[in-house]
């Protein structure tokens, strides 16, 4: 099974099966909607996991890129008459450009210094979005035009379930290919030791920058998709807490695990929905669960479970 899962087609296939299988178990539109939110978050988390899990570089500002994607589909169609799909593309290109420009100086920093720099950068994006009310509607957010494809209005939770699920499978497939490529090997090498990687002839700065740009584009596309699904955007999807949420999803699911990214996203999206009945105690329970999982399953859920089964088989 371990060998099967390491094949670069296996993981996207498992996710595709999951998307299809779950669709048979959806009692209502509400569940379709929550599942769509899981797929969208998982897409952003896979991108961030490429950066954190494979290259070992932390980013506490990824929600900023998420926000750029979200606001691109909110702002560009009404202001410039751009088709929403082109707006998604424009958001992704803009995100890539910004990540490229900022990535060079930021990625020279290490450890906690990198954390605080990405944190500051993310906060700058979030503040710009919530302060430039003439463009973005300010803290209250703004509506997003519904997506229309070939005269067909895309609507309904089940439709978005399939679209976001499809995007997730594509995202996972690209990520698996990237990980298996020479760039992916370079990333894992620099994760272990930058010096050793450099000695082996890897352009460390370029490898880091590449994965930073790619992970930012994942976040941007996820942000655009969420904005289209909700039909509304608010600045809190770009703020620090959402960045932390994304990082938590990565670590919870498992660093360097694509399937783990989906698991981490599922837990942190579904848990608050399940806890709304206890709204007074919601934060206490959420914080407690985060702590307990991280203490007990330190490597993250999917790698811990995998290690458990591997250990049993070897006995």
């Amino acid at each position, binding site marked *: 099974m371990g060998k099967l899962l390491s094949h670069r087609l296996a993981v996207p296939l498992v996710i595709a099966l999951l998307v299809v299988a779950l669709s048979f178990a959806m009692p209502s539109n509400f569940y379709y909607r929550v599942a769509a939110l899981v797929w969208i978050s998982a897409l952003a988390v896979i991108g961030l996991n490429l950066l954190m899990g494979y290259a070992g570089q932390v980013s506490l500002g990824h929600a900023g890129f998420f926000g750029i994607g979200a606001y691109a589909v909110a702002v560009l169609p009404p202001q410039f008459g751009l088709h929403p799909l082109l707006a998604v593309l424009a958001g992704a290109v803009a995100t890539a450009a910004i990540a490229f420009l900022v990535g060079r100086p930021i990625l020279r920093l290490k450890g906690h210094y990198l*954390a*605080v720099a990405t944190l500051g950068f993310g*906060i700058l994006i979030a503040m710009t979005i919530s302060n430039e009310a003439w463009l973005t509607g300010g803290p209250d957010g703004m509506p997003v035009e519904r997506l229309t494809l070939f005269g067909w209005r895309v609507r309904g939770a089940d439709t978005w379930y399939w679209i976001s699920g499809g995007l997730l499978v594509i995202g996972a497939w690209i990520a698996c290919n990237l990980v298996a490529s020479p760039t992916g090997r370079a990333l894992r090498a620099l994760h272990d030791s930058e010096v050793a990687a450099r000695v082996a002839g890897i352009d460390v700065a370029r490898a880091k920058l590449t994965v930073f740009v790619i992970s930012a584009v994942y976040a941007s596309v996820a942000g655009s998709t969420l904005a289209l699904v909700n039909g509304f955007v608010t600045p809190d999807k770009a703020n620090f807490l959402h960045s932390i949420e994304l990082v*938590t999803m990565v670590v919870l699911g498992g660093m360097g695990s694509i399937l783990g990214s989906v698991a981490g996203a599922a837990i942190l999206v579904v848990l608050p929905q399940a806890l709304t009945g206890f709204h007074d105690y919601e934060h*206490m329970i959420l914080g407690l669960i985060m702590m307990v999982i*991280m*203490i007990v399953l330190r490597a993250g859920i999917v790698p811990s479970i995998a290690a458990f089964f591997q250990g049993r088989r070897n006995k």
Partner: protein
Amino acid sequence: MPELLQFCVSGLTVGAVYALVALGFTIIYNASDVVNFAQGEFVMIGGMTTVFATAAGVPLPLAVIGAILVAMVVGLLLHRLAIEPARGASPVTLIIITIGASIFLRGLAQVVFDKQFHSLPAFSGDTPIRFGGAAILPQSFWVLGGAAVIVVLLWAFFNRTLIGKAVLATAANRLAARLVGINTSFVMGLSFVMSAAIGAIAGILVTPITLTSYDVGMLLALKGFAAAMLGGMGNPLGAVVGGLAVGLLEALGAGYISSTYKDAIAFIVILVVLFAMPGGLFGKASVERV
């Protein structure tokens, strides 16, 4: 000119609070390599406990002591129940644990206290003191004075007491400290208790000026973390200078440039400083050993 002085005083007052939060970060980081994102919650616990104790009729001095003790217990529990069991986990995992703790404490405060904003009466009246055309609140002197006393006490603790030196030794090299007979687990617990106390004092001193509520912790933790990094992570002097600098920059930026981008100014400066000096203002350039 009086305007500038006014901005400087309010900036230094808030900066002193950031400095204390940053010091808390530094103490825990040095003893255990943990970046404690629940540091801001200690500030909240200090302020909120004092508010609710005084409202229940407890005299202010007793309420203050009680609040500091509550924070110290929370700090100890955080170390014993969440950090110690996760010993050996990666830095990011530990950060997530402290963020989980911060969310938990915020949720707990929301249940135990409430979701309103609260204030305390100023310790020695509200009559502003006129100084060079600027009006300075007496409470500002309490904050600045309190911060100065804490810094001096900490300095004495680290340089003049055996336990303080044990903490320094643990910070320098944990294994070597254990080899010479230092109980490093005790030292780590102590660092959490001390940081909690410092945070709580900061929260109590500043509540008459800035108000407090169950959710003030996160932003304070961010600013304190940024201040600690600006000064150079792990450097107590850097933490104090970094904290005061962030407070000053914010006040000057809000006054002269744009109050809506107040928080952004501090972060822009931090980004610029880090690009020029990747180890912070007082940090040593780190060399990776192979």
